[in-house]
C-alpha cells in the first residue's frame, strides 16, 4: 500500500476517494482551445489591422465610446486565456478540486470574443455591434425559453413532453388567426395583437390537454403521443393555412405587438436596449422564469409536483393526487409553450406560415435537458442557443470567409460538445414516461 493511499482518508473526506479522475472536460477544452488558437488567433489579420466593437445605441443616456483593439494580438491573447483555462481545469481534475461553472462560462466568452475579433479584423466600414448581438440573443431565445419551461413543467410531474414543437406551432397559429380576426373587426392592430397573445396559450393548452388525456387516462407511451401530436398540429395548421387562411387573407396578416420601452431603464447603454426595450411577450418571459423557478423549488406546490415526478407512489401515499397534478401540469405546460408560440407571429410581426416553428420545439427540448429540468437552467441553455443564432445573423451581416452553412452548424455542434463534454450524464425525473396506475 502506498503512502498516498494511507494518508488520503485522513486528509480528505471519504467521498473523494472513490471518484475516478475524468480527463474528458480538460481534454475537450484544450483541444478546442488549440484549434481556436490556430484558426482565430494565428490566422487573424495582423499588421495593424483592428477590430471595432460598438456598444452604445443612439438614444442611450450616455455614450460608451466604441472600443477598437489590435486584432491579431487580442485574438491571440483571448485564445491563450482559453488554453490557460483548460490548464486550470486539468489542474482541478489532477487535484480533485471541483471547479464551478465560471470556468466554462469564461472559456466560452473568451472564445466567442476571439471569433468576433477575427471576424471584424481589418474592416473599416463595419464594426461588431455587440449590443445588437445581445438583443438578438434575447429575442431569438424567447420561444426556446417558453418551450423549455413547458417541458420542465411537464417532465417534473412525470409526463414527457415531446409535443413542445406542436404547442409552439398551435400557439403561433391561433395567435395569428385571432389577431387577424379581432383587428379586422375592431380596426385596431395592436389590440388585435394583444388578444392574439391571450389566445396563443389556449391553443397550447389544448395540445397539452390532448397529451395528458392519452398519457394519463389511456396510458399510451408519452413519447408516442408527443411525436404524433406534433404531426397532427403540423397537419391541422397547414391544412387551415391552405384553406381558411388562403380564402380569407384578412385572417392572416402581419400584425405585431408594439415595443414597450420601459422609461429610463431602457436608455441605460447595453442593458437597456437588450432587456428593457422589448415587447410584452419578453417581459412575460422574465416574469414566468422567475415565478416558476421560485414556485418549483421553494413552494409547497413545487415540492408536490416534483414528488409526483420522482416517486408517484410515495406522493399518493401522503395524499397528493398524482394524476390530477400531472394533468394540470401538462395543460399548464402546454399553455406556456403556446404563449411562446406567439413569438413566431404576433411578437415578431409576421403572418402565419406552414411549419414556421422550424424545429424550435426540439431545440427547446434540448435546452430543457441541457438545463437539467430547472427553469433557471432552461433560461441559460435557451440563451446559449439564442446567442449562437444571433451570432450567425451577425456574421451574415458583416460577412466572413467561413461558409454560411458551417456558421449555421455552430450552435448544434456547440450543443453536442456541451452535452458530451461538460454536462455528461443527466438524470431526468425518475417517474418520467411511466403511467401511474393505482
Amino acid at each position, binding site marked *: 500500500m502506498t503512502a498516498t493511499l494511507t494518508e488520503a482518508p485522513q486528509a480528505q473526506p471519504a467521498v473523494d476517494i472513490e471518484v475516478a479522475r475524468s480527463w*474528458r472536460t480538460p481534454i475537450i477544452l484544450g483541444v478546442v482551445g488549440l484549434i481556436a488558437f490556430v484558426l482565430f488567433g494565428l490566422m487573424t489579420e495582423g499588421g495593424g489591422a483592428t477590430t471595432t466593437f460598438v456598444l452604445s445605441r443612439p438614444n442611450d443616456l450616455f455614450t460608451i465610446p466604441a472600443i477598437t483593439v489590435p486584432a491579431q494580438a487580442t485574438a491571440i491573447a483571448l485564445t491563450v486565456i482559453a488554453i490557460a483555462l483548460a490548464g486550470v481545469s486539468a489542474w482541478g481534475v489532477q487535484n480533485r478540486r471541483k471547479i464551478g461553472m465560471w470556468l466554462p462560462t469564461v472559456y466560452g466568452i473568451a472564445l466567442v470574443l476571439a471569433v468576433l475579433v477575427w471576424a471584424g479584423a481589418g474592416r473599416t466600414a463595419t464594426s461588431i455591434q455587440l449590443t445588437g448581438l445581445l438583443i438578438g440573443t434575447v429575442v431569438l431565445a424567447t420561444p426556446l425559453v417558453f418551450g423549455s419551461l413547458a417541458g420542465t413543467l411537464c417532465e417534473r410531474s412525470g409526463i414527457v413532453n415531446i409535443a413542445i414543437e406542436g404547442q409552439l406551432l398551435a400557439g403561433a397559429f391561433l395567435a395569428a388567426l385571432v389577431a387577424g380576426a379581432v383587428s379586422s373587426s375592431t380596426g385596431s392592430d395592436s389590440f388585435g395583437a394583444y388578444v392574439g397573445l391571450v389566445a396563443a396559450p389556449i391553443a397550447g393548452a389544448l395540445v397539452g390537454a390532448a397529451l395528458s388525456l*392519452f398519457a394519463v387516462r*389511456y*396510458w*399510451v*407511451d408519452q*413519447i*408516442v*403521443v408527443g*411525436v*404524433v*401530436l406534433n*404531426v*397532427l398540429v*403540423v*397537419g*391541422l395548421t*397547414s*391544412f*387551415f*393555412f*391552405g*384553406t*381558411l387562411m388562403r*380564402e380569407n387573407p384578412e385572417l392572416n396578416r402581419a400584425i405585431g405587438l408594439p415595443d414597450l420601452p420601459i422609461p429610463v431603464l431602457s436608455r441605460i447603454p447595453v442593458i437597456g436596449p437588450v432587456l428593457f426595450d422589448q415587447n410584452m411577450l419578453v417581459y412575460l418571459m422574465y416574469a414566468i422564469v422567475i415565478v416558476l423557478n421560485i414556485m418549483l423549488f421553494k413552494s409547497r406546490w413545487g415540492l408536490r409536483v416534483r414528488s409526483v415526478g420522482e416517486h408517484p407512489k410515495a406522493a399518493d401515499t401522503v395524499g397528493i393526487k398524482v394524476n390530477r397534478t400531472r394533468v394540470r401540469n401538462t395543460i399548464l405546460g402546454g399553455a406556456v409553450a403556446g404563449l411562446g408560440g406567439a413569438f413566431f407571429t404576433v411578437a415578431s410581426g409576421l403572418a402565419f406560415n*406552414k411549419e414556421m416553428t422550424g*424545429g424550435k420545439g*426540439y*431545440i427547446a*427540448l*434540448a435546452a430543457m*435537458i*441541457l438545463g437539467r429540468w430547472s427553469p433557471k437552467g432552461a433560461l441559460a441553455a435557451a440563451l446559449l442557443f439564442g446567442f449562437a443564432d444571433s451570432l450567425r445573423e451577425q456574421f451574415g451581416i458583416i460577412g466572413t470567409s467561413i*461558409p454560411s*452553412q*458551417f456558421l*449555421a*452548424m455552430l450552435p*448544434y*455542434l456547440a*450543443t*453536442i460538445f456541451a*452535452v*458530451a*463534454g461538460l*454536462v*455528461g*450524464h*443527466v438524470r431526468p425525473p425518475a417517474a418520467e414516461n411511466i403511467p401511474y396506475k393505482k
Partner: protein
Amino acid sequence: MSAEQTTAKAVEEQDDRSVLRQIAESSGLVVALAVVASIVIGAILVVLASPEVEEALGYFFSRPADTFAAAWEAITGAYTAMFRGSVWNYNGDTFVQQFRPLTESLTMATPLIFAGLGLGIGFRAGLFNIGAQGQIIMGAMIGGWVGFAWDLPWGLHLIVAIIASVLGGALWGFIPGILKAKAGAHEVIVTIMLNYVAANLIAYALSTDAFQLEGSDNPKSPPIAETAQYPLILGDSFRLNLSFLLAIAAAFGVWWLMERSTWGFRFRAVGANARAARTAGMNVPLSIIGVMTIAGALSGFAGSSQILGTESSGLTAGVAGSFGFDAITVALLGRSRPLGTVMAAILFGGFKASGPALQVQAGLPVDIVLVIQSLIVLFIAAPPLVRFLFRLPAPSREKVVAA
C-alpha cells in the same frame, strides 16, 4: 441458475406478455375502427374547408339538402382521389395507369421501411433516436457521390454505392451511440443536433464544385450513373425498384437479429433493464453503440433507396424529404416490430403517394394526410378511446397499452 439465464427468462417473459398484449389490443376490429374514426374526422375537415359547402350553407334553411349533397361530394371527392392516388386508379385507360398508384405507394414505403426498422431497433433497446433524417441525408450524400463521381462496371458500382450509403448512415448513427455510451450524452439531443448538422453539411457540399454539375451553379449534383442505379423490378413504366425487395429482406434480417441472435437478445435486455443487463455481464455501452450504428446503417439504406432509386436524377438538399421524421411514426405505429413496421410503412407510403392526386383532383392541401395519419396512430395506441367512441364493451384485459 446463472444471472444471465435469469435475465434471459425475464426478457422472454416480458416478450411473451407483449405478444399476448399485442393480440389483445391490436385486435382487427380496433384497428379498423381507428381508421374509420380518423377518416370521419378527416371528412369533417374536408367539409369545413369546402367552399361549395360554405356556399350551400348560406341558404341552408331554404334548401338544406344542397348542403348535405355538397358535403357528401366534397368527402367522396377527397377520398376517392386518395384511393386513386395510392391503390388503384380505376379511371386509368391502360393497365399501367391503373396499376401505377399501388407501385408508387410501395416506392414511397421503401425508405420508410428501412428507416423505421432502424428506429424500431433503437426503441426496443430503450434509445429514442430522432436522427433518421440526418442519417438518410448522410447516406444519400456519400452514396450519391460514389454514384455520380466514380466510374465502375455495372453491378459492382451499385454495390459499392450502396455500401457507401450504408457507411454514411452508420457513421451518423455511431456518433450519438459512442457519445451516449462513453460520455453519457443524451441521444435525443445529439441526434436532433446531428440532423441539423447533416442538413447544413449537404447544403455546403452542394455549393462546392465537387458536387455540382459542371458549368452549373445550382445546388444539384450530376445524375447518378446508370451503373449505380437500382434496377427497376416491374419494367420501365413503374418506379418500383430493387431497393423495395432489399427493404423486405432487411425486415427479415432485423427480425432474425432481434429475435434469434445473441446481439438482439442483448439489445432487448438493455432496453428492458440496462442495470440488470450490466449485472448479467453484458456490455451495455457496446450494445448502445451497436444499436445506434445498425439503426444508422438502415437509415443509410433508406438514403440509398432515394438517391440510387427515385431521386437518381441528382442529389439535392431535399433528398431525404420528410422520410426521417415520418419513419418515427411508422416505427411507433408498427410497435417497433419488423412486420408491423413494414405494414405501417406501406400504409404511410400509400398516404404519401395519394398526396398529389388529392391536391390536383380534389383541390385540397396535402396536409390533411398528416392529420389522418396521426389520428390513426393515436387511436390505435388508445384502444379504450376507440371502444368508447364506438360504444364497444371493454374486454376483460383492458387498459394495457404501451409502445
